[in-house]
């Protein structure tokens, strides 16, 4: 059985300007110890999917309307807040996007790191906690951990803070780590180091990783499975090999071709024409049709169903019907 299984998830945001179908019938699954990459432009519903899994949607605007989120066989949608508090941070760790704003500015690193251990593992003694946290800081390759514990977030660099955040997310040995574009706020030089760190941790502890990014090339490098999301729906998903070999959906293809090849100079990167759709006013038919170079009449009439092109590779596009 898969560790995380999302079935037909619908998460809507009820805003002042209307209802936004942020997640609109998404399904995917993630095996224990594997890595799934969720790719898409900003505003496509990736973050809302993550927040739905943790049940931390913006209140009162966001709501899970229907669908199931099975985590280790249990439906998180049905859980009470008290039960969720026992899962968050213990069985599911999260690495948020921005390390600069994710740490509480008024507490020192020691307090923030020991907190989940105290809550979930019931350890009380300061010395025990401190040793454990020092150990974790070493694992996330922070030099001189004893000294860093005394620090406040504003005294650390961005890369260091993101390591601390990563350390917090693994501190209770979770089964699943959710990473929401953890490197976007970091310097390019630090990004590669951080991604390597995540991969190392993932393989040593054998945790499942749900990695969200807009960078398909990165996803190809670190993931086993890929799901491409557009306007709240998954348009293509499958194993990295399949999709890398044969990218089918026009949108995924556009994402691939906008990756600059390493070995040649090109004057201009191809870009996807048009704007990402406004989620208040989605077009009839396939949402990508207005920007799609291959759009047919059918595409403007009905949203394509999911077609399986091979074992574990499916795509929602009428061209593969």
């Amino acid at each position, binding site marked *: 059985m898969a560790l995380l299984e999302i079935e037909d998830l619908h998460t809507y945001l009820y805003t002042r300007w209307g209802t936004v179908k942020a997640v609109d019938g998404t399904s995917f699954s993630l095996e224990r110890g594997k890595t799934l990459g969720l790719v898409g432009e900003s505003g496509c519903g990736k973050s809302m999917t993550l927040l739905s899994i943790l049940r931390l949607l913006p209140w009162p605007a966001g709501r899970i309307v229907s669908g199931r989120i099975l985590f280790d066989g249990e439906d998180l949608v049905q859980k009470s807040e008290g039960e969720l508090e026992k899962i968050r941070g213990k069985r599911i760790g999260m690495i948020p996007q921005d390390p600069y*704003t994710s740490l509480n*500015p008024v507490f020192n690193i020691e307090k923030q790191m020991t907190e989940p251990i105290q809550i979930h593992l019931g350890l009380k003694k300061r010395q025990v906690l401190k040793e454990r946290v020092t150990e974790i800081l070493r694992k996330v390759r922070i030099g001189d951990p004893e000294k860093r514990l005394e620090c406040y977030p504003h005294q650390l660099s961005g890369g260091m803070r993101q390591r601390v955040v990563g350390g917090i997310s693994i501190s209770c040995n979770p089964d699943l780590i959710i990473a929401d574009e953890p490197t976007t706020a970091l310097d390019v030089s630090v990004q590669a180091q951080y991604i390597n760190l995540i991969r190392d941790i993932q393989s040593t502890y054998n945790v499942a990783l749900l990695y969200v990014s807009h960078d398909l090339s990165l996803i190809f490098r670190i993931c086993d499975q890929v799901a491409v999301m557009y306007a709240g729906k998954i348009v293509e998903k499958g194993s990295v090999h399949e999709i890398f070999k044969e990218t089918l959906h026009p949108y995924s293809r556009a994402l691939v071709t906008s990756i600059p090849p390493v070995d040649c100079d090109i004057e201009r990167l191809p870009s996807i024409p048009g704007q990402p759709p406004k989620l208040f006013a989605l077009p009839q038919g396939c949402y990508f049709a207005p920007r799609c170079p291959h759009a047919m009449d059918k595409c403007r009439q009905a949203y394509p169903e999911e077609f399986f092109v091979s074992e574990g590779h499916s795509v929602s596009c009428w061209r593969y019907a």
Partner: protein
Amino acid sequence: MRSFILRRLLQLFVTLFVFLTIMFFLVRMTGNPAEAFAPTDATPEDIKRIAAGMGLDKPLYIQYFLYLKDIATGSFGQSHKSLRPVSDLLLTHSINTIKLAAVTVVLSIIIAIPLGVVAAVKRFTLIESSIGVFAVFGMSVPGFWMGIILIELIAVRLGLVPAGGMSGPSSYILPAITMSTLLIAGLVRLLRSSMIDTLDSDFVRFARMKGVRKRPLIWKHTLRNALLPVLGFAGVQIAMFLTGSVVVETVFAWPGLGRLMYSALIERDLPVVQGCVTLFVFFAIFINLLVDILSSYLDPRIRLG
């Protein structure tokens, strides 16, 4: 931390200086300052004596230094009415003001913090709108109106507490309630909006992702951060609070600085008014400094630079 406090100290010193300078020039703009300082029934000799005391025959900058020296040494002249030195009056009256203010501030903080937090946490509920309505009322009700009504209802009709004056603990009740209303309303409004912003911040969301339970999440992670912007607006609140204290002392015949100032104003006793105003501004500055120390204690970004 030390540099921050020193910087603020310097700034507050500038405030005091600006104020004293304004006062100095205002008095000199009246034509004959000695007349302004003299009692209404003063003889020409009296006025001459006062003029000599203020150094009015000397150049302006020497007058200015004399004036600053007098204030620094706490000699504000003599009251026309009681003929006592103003500094004596200030000393005896300010203690009563400080007592009432301390009671009020403690009361306000005890009430305002839970209300502000609850209003933010229970958003879009009846609780929030009730607290909101209460806060708008508190902002809008002048102390003199509320004081008069409280005296009539609780002191006169029900006879529960004394109507005025300072006699025993029960005499604190009505003035403290009246004075704290404005402060509570202001604090609740600031704290509520700051709590709402903080509850929406990334670090609170991350704390929830760690599995922090609701109570510590609100009272530790959020509140401590939400208090910082509230302290940032303390200057305005303190100014309004001191204004309120003058009104409340007048209404409740509280033997404090505010009442002293009011009666001096009515009797046109300028030395006393000047002394009271200076002392009030000094208080304002002192409380501002306390608030700065508190915020540097709460915020490591200030404490550690």
